[in-house]
């Protein structure tokens, strides 16, 4: 549960830095507004995309269905402990 929260915070802060803090640091110039809009939109879209996939996998309603051989291979490759 803690790991979940930490990851969530790390990515939110990452994209928040790019999308909210960085725009204030863009130097004055011809393209300042454009770059600010680009940064904000990019970070909003990318964060939302990441968030949807992260939340969907947090509480899955069903697990992966593996063929017998694949299951054996995974069991030996990845082990049985987390």
């Amino acid at each position, binding site marked *: 549960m803690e790991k*979940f929260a930490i*990851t969530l915070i790390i990515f939110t802060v990452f994209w928040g830095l790019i999308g909210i803090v960085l725009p204030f640091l863009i130097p004055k110039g011809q393209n300042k507004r454009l770059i600010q809009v680009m940064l904000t939109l990019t970070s909003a*879209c990318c964060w939302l995309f990441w968030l*949807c996939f992260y939340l*969907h996998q947090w*509480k899955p*309603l*069903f*697990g992966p269905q*593996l063929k017998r051989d694949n299951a054996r291979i995974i069991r030996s490759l990845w082990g049985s402990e987390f």
Partner: protein
Amino acid sequence: MTLCQLFLQPDAAYSCISELGELGIVQFRDLNPNVNSFQRKYVNEVRRCEEMERKLRFLETEIKKDELPIYDPEDNPDAPKPREMIDLEATFEKLDHELKEINTNADALLRNFNELTELKHNLTMTQGFFDDAEMAFTPAHNRNQRDSDDDQVQLLYEYSMISHNKLGFITGVVPRERMVAFERMLWRVCRGNVFLRQAEIPELIEDPVSGEKLHKTVFVVFFQGEQLKNRVQKICEGFRANIYPCPENPHERRELAMGVMTRLEDLTVVLSQTQDHRQRVLAATSRNLRTWQIKVKKIKAIYHTMNMFNNDVARKCLIAECWAPVSELDRIQLALRKGSEASGGGTVSSVLNRMVTREQPPTHHKLNKFTQGFQNLVDAYGVATYREINPMPFVLITFPFLFAVMFGDAGHGILVTIFALWMVLKERSLKDKWRNQEVWTIFFGGRYIILLMGIFSIYTGIIYNDVFSKSLNIFGSSWRVRFGDDTLAKHDSVMLEPTPYNYTRSGDYRQMFSGTPYPIGLDPVWQLADNKITYTNSVKMKFAIIIGITQMGFGLFLSLWNHLHFNHRHAIYLEFLPQIIFLACIFFYLIILIFYKWTSFDGSKATDAPSLLIHLINMILFSYKTDPPSAAVFYTGQKQFQTFLILLAVLCVPWMLLGKPIYRIVMNKRRANRGVVLDADVRDTDTEDMLDDEHSHQQHHQHEVEMSEVWVEQGIHTIEYFLGCISHTASYLRLWALSLAHAQLSEVLWHMILHLGLSMNGYGGAIASFFVFMPWSSLTVFILLLMEGLSAFLHALRLHWVEFQSKFYKGEGYPFVPFSFRLLLDEAPVEA
């Protein structure tokens, strides 16, 4: 953007326009639209320019014929003064004349040369015939000749002995392919009474008349009598054989041959000297050709522009009207001053005067090479109405992002990015290459778009965990297989346990999911799962709906911004509010439900998890059942809350349908009662043209708006919006559909092609891997990158044009096309 009037002195006009052309920020209006182009003031100058261009084109073809390089000027030559134009004309005339002369001379010399060559061959071959004939007269000596010649010569000898008559002959040269037909024709026409001898010329000869290189044959025809001679001559003419006179006397023949040889040598020398002279002339021209072309284009453009002006005879000046951005007026004044000074510093300088008008000005966006591509995408649908919000800065990011959601493969994204990076980094050298290939110019023009598309595709590929249909396991999967050997032996396939804690009462439970999701993107275990598609369908569809509704809501807020800018207070309350409330009640509520479902239901309650689609449908239909469990309410007060939301949403429909027309009726009544409009709400153009806004707008709104039109228009807008909300939301599901198709295509290529080669063992496997790469890579490029890329591009574009822009964009403007030399020169395609 303001309409300006320029008053120009006729002497200064040319240089002023030249300066404005270099500046490139005014758009001139045609003040003489009804005047035929042949009756305009400067039509002669334009004609002269066209004549100069024609001569330059002729020179260019001649240079290209000789395959000389044309030197491209680095700098931008200025438009020359009117006096210089006469010099240029003289230079071109001289060059034109000279080159034509050289060409004519060279042609005549070449024809002469070819004729003499044929004559030379003629003489050489016929020499052979007559020698044979003479040798036959020497009796009994040297009878060891070849048989065929022997027969023929014997015939000749006998015939001449018998008839004692002089045999006439004609010699000539005929193309080899016609020789057989020629012989047959001679035989038939002259009834076998002529004697033909032929010899082939071994090398290719250039025909003097047609200029082609052919194989030719020399022939000599012997006959007796005038009639036969005429017939033979006519046949020769018919077969276009070149007849050459040949003296009978061997001594004369030898002299003629010598003469021909000397003349041929002389001609060769003269020809080569002519060619050298031509090369020299063309080389000198090629250095200046491009500069001249640019100068002539500029002159022509200036005179075309000046043709649009009004010649005011009374005040002895030219009047021009142009659109110019208000912020650039200083630079324009400066350019006018420069122009006036350059043309001799007249006492009166040119004057710029701002005009007021009710016409809609052209729309001008300040762009650079990066934003130009995206603006083209937006403008392809419609140019923005004057002063309305430009969707381009937002489209700049959302378009590549939505493309990437549909394209979603990091490996393909890397390939696309590399291609785009190559185009962007090599911009300068690639700019003028392959200008005639339309497909290339399209790709090159969109290089920045493709670059962004590629970069976002790498990101979405990482989130989908799809690199050429394979997954990466960087952080360690969150799933483990904890089945024993006995379970695995009993079942063909097993499903891992999704709940991370023991929710059953029994001790059989084994934890197979760690409880923490894979940090970035999709867990790599799903790559091997049979039910991967079922799992990803769910998340992709939900994301598609979320991003779609977010984008539409964003579009609505842009429309709010538009209303605020144009000061349409009534539109905010009567259009924006019902729209946003409807969207929020139904679709933002849906997004909240999606997030709620993601965070509240886990594997232990899988059967109770609500199906959101069923709940949405039931919400609208007001039907609340208790079975199956996926359709039952899942939070207290759901029924009441949802009913409230639906009623609120339904209320928005008449609010939007009736609001604006009733407002207009009220406004019309008020206007009818008072004489003048004092309402600030009714102003609807930009507040910067403060010259006499109120006055012009009062006049504009004096006339009543036709009520039936307003009702119909509002009805259309209402239906379009509310139906559109639902249909556009469903339309966003194409994001899911295309990404599924792409992933499946990618996987097919892996399983059916690359896997075959890589799964074979040994040396055979190595060779198979080599051969299998070719179809895999070409199919990847052509089907996945090009076809799927084009498809995703198109769908992302449609989503922007229809679903996003219909919420706020009118797109009824016309573009600002300034008079700019730079634009003029860039657009001109390089001749093939």
